[in-house]
């Protein structure tokens, strides 16, 4: 930073602290303190239904949850959900973005430009749609008896019971694909138009243009988006499952975040839930570190 001349900002360092301290106090009180309490709790047995006392059990909660098959089943469910949703969303989002760009880059005239605005508006809507709404709408659409999907296909499939993970992924994909489309579309628009003209002069067809120009140019954005989505799907998927299957049938869709929440608030095993929560934070931290490393190691970003 160029602070060679006497900058009025540099010498008064406590001023910075004055501005930061309200946020800092808030985060310390309502994030740092609870999380340290969580860590302490993970070494205690605490089941408020049985007794209000905390009993020190050392790493007992950790050995218990790590020996529990349900823990691994929920991590497996999270892996399935993450892999399925990220792959589908990235492929469909990329296809959508390329077609959208193919249309809007070639639109001309007044009607063309209003159509352009309409599409841009259309594809930001799902971002504002609450996940809960995506969940309940798809529950109706995929309902075995009164759902229009079965009526259209002339089938009687109980989607959320027979194919629960697929159905949850469909609901999640519906909400997320337009968002990915939008991000990648913005990346395509930032490619210099002269490059497309040069490709055309070289006689490239649509496929060659995509393979040699568009895809390499937006690959960094594709990679970062996919990485962010992966971390999010693994560590934060909650609403879409909670409001559709609730983790069932059995625990087929009991993804890890939901499993932690259920252990705490359905079974009221606060000690074990804390151990799971600490494990989740560690996993999330490792993912985050990996993500950071991944982004930093890419040249040009």
């Amino acid at each position, binding site marked *: 930073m160029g602070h060679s001349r006497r900058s*009025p*900002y540099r010498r008064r*360092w406590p*001023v*910075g*602290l*004055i*501005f*930061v301290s*309200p946020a*800092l106090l808030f*985060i310390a009180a*309502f994030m*740092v303190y*609870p*999380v340290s309490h969580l860590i302490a*709790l993970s070494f205690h047995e605490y089941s408020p239904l049985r007794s209000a006392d905390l009993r020190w059990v050392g790493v007992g909660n950790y050995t218990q949850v790590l020996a529990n098959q349900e823990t691994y089943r929920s991590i497996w469910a999270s892996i399935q959900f993450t892999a399925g949703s990220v792959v589908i969303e990235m492929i469909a989002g990329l296809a959508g973005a390329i*077609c959208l760009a*193919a*249309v809007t880059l*070639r*639109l*001309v*005239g007044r009607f*063309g430009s209003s159509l352009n605005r309409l*599409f841009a*508006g259309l594809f930001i809507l*799902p971002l*504002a*749609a*609450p*996940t*809960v*709404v*995506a969940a*309940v*709408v798809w529950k*109706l659409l995929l309902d075995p008896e*009164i759902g*229009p999907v079965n*009526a259209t296909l002339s089938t009687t499939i109980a989607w959320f019971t027979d194919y629960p993970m697929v159905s949850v992924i469909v609901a999640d994909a*519906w909400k997320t694909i337009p968002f990915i489309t939008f991000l990648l579309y*913005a990346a395509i628009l930032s490619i210099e138009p002269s490059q497309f003209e040069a490709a055309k002069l070289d006689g490239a067809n649509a496929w060659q243009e995509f393979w040699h120009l568009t895809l390499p140019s937006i690959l960094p*954005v594709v990679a970062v*988006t996919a990485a962010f989505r992966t971390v999010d799907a693994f*560590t934060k998927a*909650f*609403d879409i499952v*909670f*409001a559709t299957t609730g983790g069932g049938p059995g625990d087929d869709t009991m993804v890890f975040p*939901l499993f*932690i*929440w259920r252990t*705490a608030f359905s079974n009221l095993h*606060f000690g074990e839930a804390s151990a*799971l*929560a*600490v494990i*989740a*934070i560690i996993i999330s931290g490792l993912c985050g570190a990996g993500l950071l490393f991944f982004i930093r190691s890419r040249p040009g970003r």
Partner: protein
Amino acid sequence: MKLFAKRAAPKAAWALAFVIILAIVALLPIAWMTLSAFKSDDEINQIPPTFWPQTSTLDNLLQLFTQFHFGILTVNTVIVSFFVVTLSLALGGAAAYGLSRYPFFGSNLLFHAILVTRLVTPASFVLPLYLMMDSLRLTNTVTALVIGITVLNLPFVIWILKPFFDSLPREVEEAAQLDGLGPIGIFWRFAITLAGPGFKTVALFSFITAWTDLLIPITMSTRPEGWTLTAGIVQMQTGFKIYWGALMAGGLYLTLPSFIIAIAMQKALTRGLRTTF
């Protein structure tokens, strides 16, 4: 009417067809929800389902208020959204400004430490937060919701706004300083105005976060007094009977405000997406 430049027309027409199909797939579920919101429960339970309501009714919408507490839930959701946005902007805006304009020993480390709190998975965080709110006797209140949603949102706000302040020219603020204005005066009178677009973006994202959050209200509250609309909608499908009509009306009711605001602030939303990723 001319849509495409002549030479590109055939290829672009195919792409347009595909985009229109995508848009229809994206919109059909919303359309189904909207139409179902005005059907009677008998009609929704009819096999095969109807697309257009045979007799449209407002019963579902009324039922939301008479049976599913949407009056108080609406008030709660508006209050929570308002305070989450205000607190996020005030705390996060000031912190981002301080970190950007008055760096001090360790401030860069502090910035990154704040970002790291984003890695705390919300499902892990709500258990100790619940115990804390319980001991403060704040469960089943909107205060607990404002605190929980804001603290999860703050790192994001600082993450967006600090680089935004970094990119703003300092001339105006330096001139104000020469005129004898103190740092807080400069922040209040000039920096906030200059950073208007960034604040708008952050306000929009904070609003959407607060308006659509489910985890915090269902964790902190067991009664409508402490729920927002999302929690109310989830509650509607527990029990033996699903009130599909009311559920769809509730979905529409919850979605419309955030759609309208997102469209009205499309520019801020687009800018936010480009800086976030």
